[in-house]
């Protein structure tokens, strides 16, 4: 029974596909899985938008949307109808084909990333040997569509937003990759299913997730920072800073194309949280050994939603950075620290199983964090802003 619940979607798919002749079965399997992904994540998107608006409201001591349906639950549907029926405006001087393609490309590229994410035991669309590489390749191509949007709009705000987005995404892409490399070094595989398997065993009741090691915790924090920047979420939402740039690269988008950008942004958030879950939080594995009877896909999606909640929480708390702070933070703190983390990971790998490696690795990371933080704050690279006034 437990095994059936765990594999219920896989079994359902097999049952459905069995109705077709053998020659069509591989194609049908893939199509069904794609359809499932294309349905589940936009559904989750609608739920998340509602959660975000309610959660942010509560953080600001407001009620949030509560008019459409019970507790405002139908608000996403109302928003969807609104954006579908709105006029689709293309600026007269815009490069129309590129302007049209940009949001489509964004959503397609983001959806591709889900292909390699293991969402439960045996629940992965394509089990690639180099899944991580594929994921990052697809993630990087979202930058192209953002720049397409900004460039084709022929609008200074769009262009500035796109420039900012590309500068920011490239800077943090490096960090994102390097913090994941630590996991690859320990797991010895680029395949995401193998990375999850490597974490799916327990010491007593506690899991051996990578976040519960010194290098894993450091790597996870760096990954989370880079992921926030990569998805253009607050406090790294400079590319669409509404107080400076109207709406950044999607200023000139309206109606359903804007909705696609919105969808793409949230899907990117899901996929990057899903990858973070897979790399550091044990993917679909249960947090305690006595909870393994709960289906694996429930664990994956709970961890995903937990990460999303942290995203929302950060958005409700932190103000936007300045462009120079953003760049200083990326190149002078996060990147060196991630490189150091790689060294520490190597040390961890070769120090054997004793307790010494815990002490040594933690000491190095904490010392480096404190020293780099102090030095950076002292030089005002990422400390509080000090105002100088004209005499």
């Amino acid at each position, binding site marked *: 029974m437990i095994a059936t619940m765990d594999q219920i979607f896989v079994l359902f798919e097999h049952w459905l596909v069995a109705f077709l002749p053998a020659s069509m079965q591989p194609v049908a399997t893939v199509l069904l899985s794609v359809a499932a992904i294309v349905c589940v994540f936009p559904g989750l998107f609608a739920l998340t938008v509602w959660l975000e608006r309610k*959660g942010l409201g*509560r*953080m*600001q*001591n*407001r*009620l949030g949307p*509560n008019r459409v349906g019970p507790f405002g639950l139908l608000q996403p549907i109302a928003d969807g109808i609104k954006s579908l029926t709105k006029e689709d405006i293309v600026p007269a001087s815009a490069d129309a084909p590129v302007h049209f393609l940009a949001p489509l490309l964004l959503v397609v590229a983001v959806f591709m990333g889900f292909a390699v994410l293991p969402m439960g035991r045996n629940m992965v669309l394509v089990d690639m040997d180099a899944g991580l590489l594929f994921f990052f390749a697809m993630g990087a191509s979202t930058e192209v569509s953002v720049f397409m949007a900004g460039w084709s709009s022929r609008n200074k705000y769009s262009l500035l937003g796109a420039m900012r987005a590309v500068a920011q995404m490239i800077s943090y892409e490096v960090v994102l990759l390097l913090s994941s490399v630590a996991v690859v070094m320990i797991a010895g595989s680029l395949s995401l299913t193998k990375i999850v398997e490597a974490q799916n065993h327990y010491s007593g009741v506690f899991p051996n997730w990578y976040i519960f090691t010194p290098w894993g915790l450091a790597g996870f924090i760096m990954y989370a920072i880079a992921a926030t920047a990569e998805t253009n979420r607050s406090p790294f939402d400079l590319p669409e800073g509404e107080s400076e740039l109207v709406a950044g690269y999607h200023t000139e988008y309206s109606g359903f194309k804007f909705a696609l950008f919105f969808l793409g942004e949230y899907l990117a958030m899901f996929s990057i949280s899903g990858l973070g879950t897979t790399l550091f939080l044990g993917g679909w594995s249960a947090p305690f050994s006595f909870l393994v009877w709960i289906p694996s896909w429930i664990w994956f999606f709970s961890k995903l939603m937990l990460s999303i909640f942290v995203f929302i*929480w*950060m958005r*409700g*708390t*932190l103000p936007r950075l300045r462009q120079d702070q953003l760049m200083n933070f990326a190149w002078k*703190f996060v990147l060196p620290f991630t490189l150091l983390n790689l060294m520490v990971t190597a040390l961890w790998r070769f120090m054997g199983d004793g307790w010494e490696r815990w002490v040594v690795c933690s000491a190095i990371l904490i010392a480096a*964090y*404190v020293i*780099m*933080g*102090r030095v*950076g*704050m002292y030089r005002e690279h*990422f400390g*509080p802003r000090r105002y100088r006034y004209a005499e």
Partner: protein
Amino acid sequence: MLGEGILKGMAETARNFAGSFVSKERLTTVEYPEERIAPAENARVFPFLVYDSADWEAGLRCVACQICEKECPPKCIYIEKSKDKKPDAVGKPQFYPTRFDIDISVCMSCQICVEVCPFEAIKMDTEFELATEDRFGGLLLDRKQLAKSNQYYHRIHPTEAAEVDARLAEEKAKSDAKAKVAADAAAVKTAASAAQTANSAATQAPVQEGTGD
């Protein structure tokens, strides 16, 4: 240490998040159509015309002096003065407005008409739910729509209305006394030199109009 401020901030928002479910005082939102806050006593939206007796048309305090029309900065008041005089609420013959329109799409709620009115005839209303489907006609209020009773005025601005009533009563008492004195003097004069100066006493106006201050 680096990151300390972020953690503090996260704790603060978490406190707000949890607190908003526990304590009702935190949520300041008033869900407007269902719940509403009573407007402040000095709230003002658009002007209205005060009337005294039961019949709005006869009881209007306005005597069509047209001062408000002239003073109105955006010129949203339009008055037509009557040709004849009708007795007002007190019984004195007065001019009256045959037409008194205020275009509330033009009105800027400055209250200058109220300041300049010598007859306490125009006051500010607190009614704000004036949305209408007709953009032009629906926002042009005529004298029937503008006329509201003194009781209504007492209900929306109790303090101010009491002051106004006291002032009006004082003026009335003063003018009554003056009229009485004038009438007495006229009577004495008439008695003293009835034969010679009968005509001069009759031409003296028995009552003077109270103009307030």
